[in-house]
């Protein structure tokens, strides 16, 4: 992965999308950032653009994050999908058991609780995207 990395933000709150976008744009000025305001749009963008990293909210109208994860996991189980994006779930869910069960999912790389701790996200991304590559 390099600076031209492609991000997909799946989040219904426009303000949070903007915060994510600014944050990622500052960290990786040459990256591509795609936005979706619900899981259904997110799935369409995923298949059309194949992002490297996805920031996924869980609770959204029309289709939530759980269905998004279910679709991707089914795609991998049935070998329809070959590439595996790194999915960071960014959620307001506070229940520890629920958070743990999301974190254990095959498709999920990390779970971050809202309000987003940007240092947490930055540290994750820096592990995945080495500098000067």
């Amino acid at each position, binding site marked *: 992965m390099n600076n031209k990395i492609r991000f997909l933000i799946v989040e219904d709150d426009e303000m949070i999308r903007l915060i994510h976008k600014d944050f990622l744009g500052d960290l990786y000025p040459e990256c591509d950032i795609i936005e979706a305001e619900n899981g*259904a749009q997110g*799935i*369409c963008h995923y298949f*059309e653009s194949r992002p490297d990293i996805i920031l996924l909210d869980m609770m959204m109208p029309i*289709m939530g994050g759980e269905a998004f994860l*279910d679709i991707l996991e089914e795609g991998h189980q*049935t070998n329809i*999908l070959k590439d595996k994006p790194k999915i960071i779930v960014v959620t307001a869910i506070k229940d520890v058991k629920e958070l743990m069960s999301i974190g254990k999912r095959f498709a999920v790389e990390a779970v971050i609780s809202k309000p987003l701790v940007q240092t947490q996200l930055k540290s994750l991304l820096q592990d995945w995207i080495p500098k000067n590559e």
Partner: protein
Amino acid sequence: MNNILIIEDESVTRTMYTGFIQRIAPKFQIYEAGNVLEGICLCFHKHPRLILLDMIMPAYSGKLLIDIIEEGIKNRIISFQPKIIVISAIETVEELTALTGRFSVTSVMPKPLPFDTLTEILKLHLKL
């Protein structure tokens, strides 16, 4: 692309649909999905011209696929628009109205499927 996708959880019914469509549209490649999640992945992967969609399936219903396709079309995220033939054991007028009102749904057919009607629909939409 000359692809047709069948999304149906009952394997015997799926096989029956496949056999029938193969006879009607032999030049088309048929893909089968046993649930809507697999169906969504195949839909984006194969861009079928026509989807035969069972509505009532375990875990997620056919509505999920319709929601996704409509969001993709409305927001101009996807460039393909499959013709969706919904197969449903319709029990109420409200259910029928809700389905026929969806812009991505081409036809709604009762279950069990009348094959003579399906033949006509396939001929019409696939230009056979």
